[in-house]
């Protein structure tokens, strides 16, 4: 596998402009001769499909839900960053670039991040023109807020549903192209394999989720925008249908998978209530601006929170990080919460929670002020937990939330399979080892609106004109493979549901490859995952038929892929012997037990190459150089 990031030469500010000029163009009249498949209709997929349709390409856009508007981008609450500097507080493209590289703990590719910061401003323009109802000031101009610990106010937002509103913007642009006949929308279709012929991506095989039929779709290029893989942990904040399957199929067809161990764990989620829970709910981390995090000093203290005197409370973030206190970054806050719970200090029925207490803030500012700031979050909390957070402290716990790892892409967002492009959370490039708040929406839309429309043209312009059609043997081979896998899973007829096995996998990963990791536990996980996979293929059961609407089959196929992918995730974690971004590697810590990044040995993206069933994957490295943002150790003491 050859890793050539193909970053254009020249000063970083000029790379993208020069590159756009260097890319070959396709005559407007010829664009309609090219078919492009876009898989996914989230921010990245919908914006790409709409923009490519506008340019004149024939686009086929696929999603698993009943409508393109349902993709999980809708769940993003906080906002979207841009370097507009409307608040005159010192922001710039350079600063957004700098913050993103630093926030990513120096594991992202500088040139990509710089381009992301450059494009951020165009995104806001585009969204406003589409009618995205961003929050505004009384003068009618756009409002900004500071988010996720940023020192400048650069976050644009639409109440608590920025993701939903941005997606509706992209979705409406997409609907316009569907109406114009430029985009063919295939809803309730799940991509199950990538078809590669002559060394390039030429189409996909998808399952029609209503009829169960396997369908072949040919194209000149495939654009993958299928999101992240947090659900490998079973419990996460991701939607129930989020999966790694499409990305994993591409990996098996030759696409390198980069940094699968880079996952983000969000500190302020509503804790697990029992073993019958299906997913976790995130609350905005803005809560930490006024809430104080604590646990009782005495393990298993049975008293209600309000009866525990201050002296017997452990305000562990304030004690340990006096200068940042409750506002330490996501990774630090998450690790600290797990640590105190592991020490037996957790609260609530499950003991897997810490208090987030607003009593002092309410006393200081009054209940009205707190309600004005966090009213909707308090309401949501009360709805789920049946406890009034104005009276008793909230209980919170970290949860897997976002995955920075993904398919490796070059500067053009093309994977190691020519003709396969990967956008949004599904790729690996921009967030390094840790993503900053309000940056995911920015990246998805930058990729879809402003990068792929240029770079895809550059690829297609140099393509030989011979098209591979769906009758080609490569399509038949892919379809047969999928059919065999479905038959196999239907025939097991065991005793367990896929969820039972998925839960075991999730717990195993959470305990052995979660926030704190060490070689011994990772080694155990590497032993246990193949056993779990074995258990799955001997004991899973799927009722009903394969040629039918069968939600259980859909789920079970996704779990089968998670069981394979999990091993790669753990393997990657084992090889990366450094504490970086979201995770703490116990072998790599400072004298006072803080994370120690190892730039000597690990300033690279680890890219895995599939070697075939039963063979260990090969690890490659893309060395990362930092010319503009000099690496430093983060300290929040």
């Amino acid at each position: 596998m050859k890793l050539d990031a193909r970053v254009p030469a020249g000063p970083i500010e000029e790379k993208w402009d020069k590159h756009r000029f260097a890319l070959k163009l396709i005559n407007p009249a010829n664009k309609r001769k090219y078919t492009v498949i876009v898989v996914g209709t989230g921010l990245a997929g919908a914006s790409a499909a709409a923009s490519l349709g506008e340019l004149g390409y024939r686009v086929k856009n696929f999603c698993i839900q009943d409508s393109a508007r349902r993709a999980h981008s809708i769940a993003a609450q906080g906002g979207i960053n841009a370097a507009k500097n409307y608040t005159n507080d010192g922001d710039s493209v350079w600063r957004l670039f700098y913050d993103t590289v630093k926030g990513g703990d120096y594991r992202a590719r500088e040139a990509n991040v710089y381009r992301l910061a450059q494009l951020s401003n165009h995104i806001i323009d585009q969204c406003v023109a589409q009618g995205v109802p961003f929050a505004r000031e009384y003068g009618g101009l756009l409002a900004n807020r500071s988010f996720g610990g940023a020192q400048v106010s650069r976050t644009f937002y639409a109440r608590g549903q920025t993701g939903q509103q941005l997606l509706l913007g992209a979705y409406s642009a997409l609907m316009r192209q569907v109406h114009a006949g430029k985009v063919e929308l295939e809803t309730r279709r799940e991509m199950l394999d990538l078809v590669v012929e002559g060394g390039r991506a030429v189409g996909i095989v998808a399952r029609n989720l209503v009829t169960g039929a396997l369908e072949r779709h040919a194209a000149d290029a495939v654009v993958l925008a299928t999101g992240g893989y947090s659900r490998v942990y079973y419990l996460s904040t991701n939607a129930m249908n989020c999966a790694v399957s499409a990305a994993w199929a591409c990996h098996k067809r030759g696409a390198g998978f980069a940094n699968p161990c880079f996952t983000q764990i969000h500190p302020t989620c509503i804790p697990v209530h029992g073993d019958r829970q299906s997913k976790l709910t995130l609350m905005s981390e803005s809560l930490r601006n006024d809430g104080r995090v604590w646990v009782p000093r005495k393990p298993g203290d049975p008293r209600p929170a309000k009866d525990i005197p201050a002296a017997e409370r452990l305000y562990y973030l304030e004690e340990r990080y006096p200068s940042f206190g409750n506002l330490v970054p996501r990774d630090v806050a998450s690790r600290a919460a797990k640590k105190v719970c592991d020490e037996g200090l957790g609260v609530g029925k499950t003991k897997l929670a810490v208090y987030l207490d607003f009593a002092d803030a309410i006393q200081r500012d009054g209940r009205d002020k707190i309600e004005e700031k966090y009213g909707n979050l308090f309401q949501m909390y009360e709805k789920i937990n049946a406890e009034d957070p104005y009276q008793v402290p909230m209980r919170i716990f970290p949860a897997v939330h976002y995955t920075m790892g993904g398919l490796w892409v070059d500067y053009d967002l093309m994977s190691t399979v020519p003709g396969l492009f990967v956008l949004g959370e599904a790729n690996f490039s921009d967030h390094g080892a840790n993503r900053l708040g309000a940056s995911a929406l920015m990246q998805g839309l930058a990729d879809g609106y402003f990068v792929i429309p240029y770079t895809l043209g550059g690829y297609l312009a140099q393509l030989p004109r011979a098209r591979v059609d769906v009758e080609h043997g490569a399509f038949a081979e892919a379809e047969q493979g999928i059919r065999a896998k479905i038959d196999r899973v239907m025939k097991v007829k065991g005793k367990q549901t896929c969820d039972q096995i998925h839960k075991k996998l999730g717990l195993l990963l959470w305990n052995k490859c979660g926030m704190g990791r060490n070689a011994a536990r990772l080694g155990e996980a590497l032993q246990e995952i193949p056993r779990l996979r074995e258990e799955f293929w001997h004991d899973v059961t799927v009722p009903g038929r394969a040629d039918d609407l069968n939600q259980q089959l859909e789920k079970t196929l996704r779990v089968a892929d998670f069981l394979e992918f999990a091993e790669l995730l753990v393997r990657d974690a084992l090889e990366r012997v450094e504490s970086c971004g979201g995770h703490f590697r116990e072998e790599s810590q400072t004298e006072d037990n803080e994370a120690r990044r190892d730039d000597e040995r690990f300033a690279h993206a680890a890219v895995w190459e599939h070697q075939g069933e039963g063979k260990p994957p090969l690890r490659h490295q893309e060395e990362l150089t930092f010319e503009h943002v000099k690496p430093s150790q983060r300290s929040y003491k």
Partner: protein
Amino acid sequence: MSTTNFSLTLHVWRQRGPAERGHMEVFERADVSPDQSFLEMLDDLNEELVRAGKEPIAFEHDCREGICGCCGLMVNGRAHGGERGTTLCQVHMRSFSPGSHLYVEPWRARAFPILRDLVVDRAAFDRIQQAGGYISVNTGQAPEAGSIPVPKPRADQAMDAAACIGCGACVAACKNASAMLFVGARVSHFVLLPQGEVERARRALAMVEAADRAGFGNCTNEGECSAACPKQIEMPHMARMFREYLRAALTESTRVRKDGGA
């Protein structure tokens, strides 16, 4: 409100396909946790069915945070279970009494054909959007975002309308199976913003006509839609859409009307 686990009886609509006859199936449920969401309670039932080699109940769901618009069922005749401003995935079992009988049915509307059990086809909503639910701006054509100020009250109202998640509860709750609250929310969102002004006439005509074509009924001002809406979209948005439609119908030439969308 129950704090300990309890029992209840479920009556669930089962239907194999769009053309087949459906029926209610009864399930006795024990050990329902008050902390579970309604959908998690259905998950438990489905897990048992699958382990027994039976086909689970098909229902749609995804984010389980009340924002994606996938879920939605009638529970005892009320869309999303009837808790104000709440999608079904956010309704918890503690809101039901121990021993109660719950009748679980899909959205009922001709424009939403049943695919299986509790899953309906809501593609008609997408077709309404395709007819005109957008501002015609290509990527790259946008002017500077700050160049057009929007009065805050109008922007806030536009946001109120834009909060619609397209779940279809309004249609299910309406005795006419009308989609007018949905169309009203979309039309209002755009017309309240200066960017949406240019195409206001075409949009209103095209979207209302697309709703008619899809087989949704008309509005007779019952207000059930707004009461059932998990995002609490209010009636004035619908009234605004009617005004837009009337204005366009009276003032626009047949040419604009014939063109429909953009």
